[in-house]
């Protein structure tokens, strides 16, 4: 049955982690992640979670410790943000290449310089090629549910990939909402204890994180690529199984919201999907044929889906809370690449929300207006900064 509570997304995520029963939590605090790991420390202190809390001296050590725990065959959790995630970067590729199913949260925050503690996606997008699965959540409820799903995905024997669950700094992490907390017994049925043979064991000694030279390195990477292809299917399967048990679904890797007869569609990620959802409803009430594609999984990227919708809409906008300097918004590049060769859709990229700048409903209306112009045959700049001052 579960219980209801008024929680920030950080607290909701902490409840999700608590219910997944990690044996160890190793973390170093950083705004806006701090209240998430503080809540986990509370759970351990008051006996709600039987886990070891490791206070490490840095984010690099946090992920190194998480790798060590996973190498002992135990479930582990860590979390970071912004500069902390960047400092952790080296260990991310160790974890992913060694195929240890570490689950982490990233409270998305901009990266210096200019120094800024507020939310955007530049930290996670910089880890795009780290070999971590990247899921983005829209609400505190989704943060809780996705934490549990993330362990199920990461530890699937056919997947065995680390997962980063992304929640927007402040917009989600420090914003309160009513959240359903599932019962431990139900979560235990959904997520059995982690079991692996790939662990340090005196009875079965192994070399972990070994060397593979040029002769076979490519094939090791192909193994990783194949796991991401499997993850594409598993994300949807696990979400469907979760929905059956807990009554909440997030539609797998992406969600099409009011897209059936839509002419202008926006791709939105994380909390921006929540705001866009409201605007779509309001513009629909005015008779405008607009829709939204919520991108929940950035890695693996649902490229087959985007290829399949080439030419479907009169105009397609992509929102990005990050920039690949010298190119476009990060997600936009991937959407365009997915559609390459069969794109009959007019497209535009909207970069917004950098450094925590609020993306308002008016701005989303502005994006749809640009798409309307494109649909009507007017010309628009392809890459636009929405909400810029000058």
């Amino acid at each position, binding site marked *: 049955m579960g219980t209801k509570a008024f929680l920030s997304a950080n607290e909701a995520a902490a409840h999700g982690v608590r219910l997944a029963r990690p044996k160890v939590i190793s973390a170093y605090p950083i705004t806006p992640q701090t209240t998430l790991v503080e809540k986990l420390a509370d759970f351990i202190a008051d006996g709600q979670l039987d886990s070891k809390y490791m206070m490490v001296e840095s984010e690099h050590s946090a992920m190194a410790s998480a790798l060590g725990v996973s190498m002992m065959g135990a479930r582990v959790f860590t979390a970071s943000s912004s500069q902390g995630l960047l400092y952790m970067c080296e260990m991310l590729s160790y974890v992913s*290449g*060694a*195929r*240890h199913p570490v689950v982490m949260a990233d409270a998305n925050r901009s990266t210096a310089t200019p120094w800024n503690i507020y939310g955007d996606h530049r930290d996670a997008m910089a880890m795009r090629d780290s070999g971590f699965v990247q899921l983005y959540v829209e609400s505190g409820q989704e943060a809780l549910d996705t934490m549990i799903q993330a362990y199920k995905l990461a530890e699937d024997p056919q997947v*065995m990939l680390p997962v980063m669950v992304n929640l927007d700094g402040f917009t989600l992490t420090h914003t309160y909402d009513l959240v359903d907390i599932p019962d431990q017994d139900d979560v235990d049925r959904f997520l059995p204890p982690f079991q692996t043979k*790939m662990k340090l064991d005196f009875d079965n*000694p*192994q*070399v*972990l*994180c*070994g*060397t*593979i*030279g040029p*002769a*076979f390195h490519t*094939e*090791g990477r*192909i*193994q990783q690529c194949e796991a991401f292809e499997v993850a594409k299917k598993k994300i949807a399967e696990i979400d469907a199984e979760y929905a059956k048990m807990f009554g909440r679904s997030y539609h797998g890797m992406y969600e099409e919201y009011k897209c059936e007869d839509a002419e202008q569609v926006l791709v939105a990620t994380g909390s921006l999907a929540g705001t866009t959802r409201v605007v779509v409803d309001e513009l629909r009430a005015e008779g405008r044929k607009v829709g939204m594609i919520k991108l929940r999984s950035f890695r693996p990227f649902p490229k087959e889906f985007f290829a399949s919708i080439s030419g479907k809409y009169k105009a397609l906008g992509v929102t990005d809370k990050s920039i690949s300097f010298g190119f476009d918004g990060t997600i936009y590049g991937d959407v365009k690449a997915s559609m390459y060769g069969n794109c009959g859709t007019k497209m535009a990229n909207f970069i917004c929300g950098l450094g925590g700048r609020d993306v308002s409903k008016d701005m989303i209306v502005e994006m749809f207006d640009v798409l309307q112009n494109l649909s009507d045959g007017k010309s628009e700049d392809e890459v636009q900064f929405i909400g810029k001052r000058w």
Partner: protein
Amino acid sequence: MKPKRDLDFKAPASMEEIPFGASFPAGHLVNPNSGYRTFAPKFDYDKCIHCLFCFVYCPEGAISKEGEKLTVDMDYCKGCGICAHECPKKCISMVKEGE
């Protein structure tokens, strides 16, 4: 006990044989260290007092104390000479390979 080098290791012949997550059975050695060793340790067992300094200091864990005498696994020894340097009785000499 330190596992012996896995001499039966065969290079993968298909995708299925690629080691998962770069994990191998213990004893896997990508290249035997002997390949780049110039000098090898040689023990004077008459002078050895079995203090195990060499065993403790060897960075490769190549020295075995399992038998009566200390022995060196030449697949793992890289010839660094730390054992010879640390030996208080100076009973380990570094001898050029092939001599």
